[in-house]
């Protein structure tokens, strides 16, 4: 506003009087303390610490003082302004903290509101069970093999030691395809993948083959014309039934937990000799057959202590010969389990119709479990 005041000398400049500076300082500090919120404080800052505040104006008058007086007046105003700015800073911090606290309270939402804006998807439990099984064997170093579902009769039967007049053929109710000369079937088991594997790879062979199979069963709670099996096949030098038992015990433990192993019962399959049925220690009663709820019979194994799981055996040398594997050099084992059945007893699913009807409520609880 003005240059050095040289018009009068010596003059007493009122705003620079000690009592005046102190009064302005005290008024500013009082106003700061009285500011109730950030908005008020902003106003106070303008009034008491802005360019046109009394202390700022007083500061400008310092130049009007004789040089010998400037220092003292400068110190006095500077100190006062310092105190005011400090008070402002402190008040600002307090008010900002108060503001933030209030805002956080005001912004409270109901976090219990639903957040289910998008719909939930799920994979089919049969798919996940197949993958879970494959993973157990992949972890053992095995490979996963697959094959077609419409299969040559020769691969589904003949190559597996089930010639046209073998009584075991009638045990597998087969969907035949037209025309009869096509000699094609919907595969009745995953075992043709065994034959395909032996015919297309050199031993050693360690494969597991989960897949869809077909039998002419009308659908009911425990039967379906479409179901799923997992086949295992090992061909190597020196392979024995003991390796079969070891592999299945490992499989059982991986699927059902420590202590759950298998037992073999003699059985018959044309493609294995010796053949066995595989039973699993009941993973619910752990083989006792008892129910922990006081009634005497375990519901999962019906009190047997064992659950029928599948079939297995040493690969019949006749199969090796038909598939071009030297039976003098190699032995092997094979096994097959029902995936749907495993799902039924492992998860307590009691109606196979639910598996294939397509009602999304069946798969949804399984989510994307892996």
């Amino acid at each position, binding site marked *: 506003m003005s240059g050095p005041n040289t018009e009068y000398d010596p003059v007493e400049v009122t705003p620079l009087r000690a009592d005046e500076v102190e009064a302005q300082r005290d008024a500013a500090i009082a106003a700061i303390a009285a500011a109730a919120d950030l908005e008020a404080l902003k106003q106070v800052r303008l009034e008491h610490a802005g360019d046109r505040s009394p202390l700022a104006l007083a500061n400008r008058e310092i130049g009007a003082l004789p040089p010998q007086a400037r220092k003292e007046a400068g110190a006095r105003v500077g100190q006062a302004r310092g105190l005011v700015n400090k008070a402002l800073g402190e008040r600002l911090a307090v008010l900002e903290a108060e503001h933030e606290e209030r805002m956080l309270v005001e912004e409270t939402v109901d976090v219990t509101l639903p957040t289910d804006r998008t719909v939930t*998807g799920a994979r089919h439990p049969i798919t996940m069970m197949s993958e879970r099984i*494959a993973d157990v064997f992949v972890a053992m*170093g095995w490979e996963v093999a697959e094959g077609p579902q419409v299969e040559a009769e020769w691969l589904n039967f003949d*190559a597996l030691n089930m010639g046209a007049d073998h009584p075991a053929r009638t045990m597998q109710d087969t969907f035949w395809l037209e025309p009869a000369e096509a*000699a*094609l079937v919907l595969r009745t088991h995953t075992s043709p993948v065994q034959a395909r594997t032996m015919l297309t790879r050199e031993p050693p062979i360690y494969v597991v083959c989960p897949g869809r199979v077909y039998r002419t069963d009308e659908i009911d709670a425990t039967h379906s014309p479409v179901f799923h099996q997992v086949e295992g096949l090992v061909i190597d030098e020196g392979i024995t039934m003991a390796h079969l038992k070891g592999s299945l015990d490992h499989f059982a433990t991986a699927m059902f937990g420590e202590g759950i192993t298998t037992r073999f019962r*003699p059985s018959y399959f044309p493609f294995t000799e010796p053949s066995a049925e595989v039973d699993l220690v009941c993973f619910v009663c752990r083989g006792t057959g008892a129910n922990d709820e006081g009634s005497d019979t375990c519901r999962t194994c019906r009190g047997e202590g064992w659950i029928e799981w599948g079939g297995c055996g*040493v690969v019949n040398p006749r199969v090796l*010969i038909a598939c071009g594997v030297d039976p003098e050099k190699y032995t092997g084992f094979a096994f097959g389990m029902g995936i749907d059945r495993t799902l039924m007893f492992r998860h307590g699913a009691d109606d196979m119709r639910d598996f294939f009807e397509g009602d999304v409520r069946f798969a949804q609880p399984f989510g994307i479990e892996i």
Partner: protein
Amino acid sequence: MKAPVSWIREYVDLPEQVTADELAATLTMLGLKLEALITPADAITGPLVVGRVLTIEKEPQKNGKVINWCTVDVGDANGTGEPQGIICGAHNFVEGDLVVVCLPGAVLPGNFEISARKTYGHISAGMICSSRELGLGEDHDGIIVLPADAGAPGDGQPAEPVQPGDDAFAVLDMFDSVIEFEINPDRAYALSLRGIAREAGIGFDVPFRDPADRDVPAANGDGHPVVVDDAGGCPVFVARSVTGFDPTAPTPDWMVKRLTAAGMRPISLGVDITNYVMLELGQPIHGYDRAKLTGAIRVRRATEGERLTTLDGQKRKLSPGPSGDLLITDDSGPIGIAGTMGGETTELSETTTDVVIEAAHFDAVSIFRTERRHKLPSEASKRFERGVDPELPAAAADRVVELMVELGGATADAGVTVVGEAPARRTVTAATDLPARVTGMEISAETAVANLEKVGCAVAVDGESLTATVPPWRPDMSDPFDLVEEVARIVGYDMVPSVLPPAPSGRGLPLAQKLRRRVGLVLAGAGWTETISYPFVGDSDWANLGLPADDERRRTIRMANPLNAEEPQLATSLLPGVLRSLGLNVGRGNADTSLFETGLVFLPTGDEKAPILGVDRRPTDEEWAAIEKAVPHQPQHLALAVTGQRERPGWWGEGRQGSWADAIGAVREVAEALGVQIEVSAAAVAPWHPGRCAEIRVGATVLGHAGELHPKVCKAYGVPDRSAAAEIDLDALLSLAQAVTPSPHFTSYPVAKEDVALVVDGSIPSAEVEAALREGAGDLLESVRLFDVFAGEQIGEGKKSLAFALRFRAPDRTLKEGEAGAARDAAVALAAERTGAVQRA
């Protein structure tokens, strides 16, 4: 096969304390699997006693029924000694008969409590029981009338006379357990008590007495004449005869009980004896009424045009030729289908006194074919097709003669006809250590030999190898590994050690399977639920999808024996299954459903003719190629469908209906997850809405289609209009997936953003405009994204405005003033040239 424990015990010295459960468990572990174990007494709580019917008063009822008001002497069993008054609705008994009475307080199978109750105007204090009510059989035609020899212990031993008040459990043999076994095809010998008892002897290491071990008279020329024309089909035929058989003689109680327990229905003494001997020894027997035979019995194949009415009353057309039906004939023509079922004309009847007994051995394959041809499984064919002991016929026929003489008062003829002879016993040679090598168990040569001897082999050891002469009842034992199984099951499968095989160096999951899992996870994560459908379809499915007559998807593979005649085709598309599921969900109130399915489709090649190759060697390369060529193409598809809301309404605002965009979007998401860049263009393909159908391509390869379903298709599947679906060839998509993703290279130089709004004709696909922008913008373009579509009056009739955000960046420098603008102008210029786009001010 059902076997009463008492019958098993007849041939094997089982320790007294062995329970039926233990016996069943031991036999199961030997390979005769327990199917069911029934002890009739276990299902009933007494008192169950013998009663003698004293009086019967017939009382007609208003409903036309006649009931019997009976008094029955039950001895002291009712505590009073007074006759018991009982109402009975059956009429197959008379005063003086011994019957089985359930007294009040008894509980019958099915938790059926018996009490004294008022009925038909009387107090009925108990029940006179039928077989079915006691769980002893299916017979419910009348109540049980105890025969004169009731309670006889069996096979010739005299009965203690039964008295009223006696405990009926014992009289009815209800403490005798019946074990039902599931017999595998390789153990046909166990379809007899002889075979089961032999296994019990092995299991408990106790002696077995072979009921077939009997002296039989030598063949002579005096028996009924028999000619066998087909020795391959019938290697052995034994004929014996009896005369003076009493056709009215009753079947003894013990035999009735055993037959019933074994699941066979007693018919008449003659027939019952043949069935009994079949159960006892495993040899099917046929009896002919000699008076009705004309001339010699001749075994031959059927000739053209022959027919026979079998015992089940069916008139059957017989199959001629060398692999046709094997027949038993006489001068009158066919009188039976060999080993399967007899004919009506010569069957044993209530007037038969002279019987010709056939005990023959028939070729398993021949019987199997006949059984399948005529869909005629019988007790006889079941045994022959699996293999019967060819050395049995003489002993079995002799046993029948013995029983007919003993029980039917017959006289045995001296004549014995034997045609043919059993084949020589087979020998199988194997290394003595083969059982150990195959099973991994420690099995010495001595154990191997001993166990083979237990199953009936004669074994000769020569150094490191053994030769087993296989017993005739084991036609299944033909290979060295068959010997291994026999040795191993007796050592015990529970002795097989558990050893992991040496771990191969695996390669993990194949890439395609990893990717398939990823596809499933991506879709499930995006709100799609997986389903599995049957691949069985019919013409109605194609009609529902609105496929034109020449649509490739109508060319299908058909099943010869579909479960449902309306669905004989194998699916060439997953859409029928997926849309049926969608409809089912809507019908069940799952209005908002997004589902997907992956699975094979079956595409005919027109070249389906798979050879049946030999099995004595590996197929040649040509043979294998022929198999591979014959198997139809079966690619894996992915289909998905959506109806209702994809996003729900809520406090956040409106919900969002699923639409064509979700179907296409899901395919895009899947492709992105696989690192495949797909292209989308408009198409008009069924079952989609012709204006809302996208073709999904990569380059020239069409992967499939997606979009909104045609309204007619929605209607056909019972889903709301605007439902959407997609189907793609998943295998084709997976084959394009990036195995190795190239790393991106980006810099920290600043981005320059330019937005443009272009007005084009409404029919111009946005993708074309975008492609032109992309190409025209040049190398500096980082990305282009359509962020708004707008149509309205200010744009002009039939026009739309597309707003794109363009981002520019140079890899090596900050863009100079005007560079981005120039690139943008170039982009717009090319879009204008290609699509007639006009930039909005």
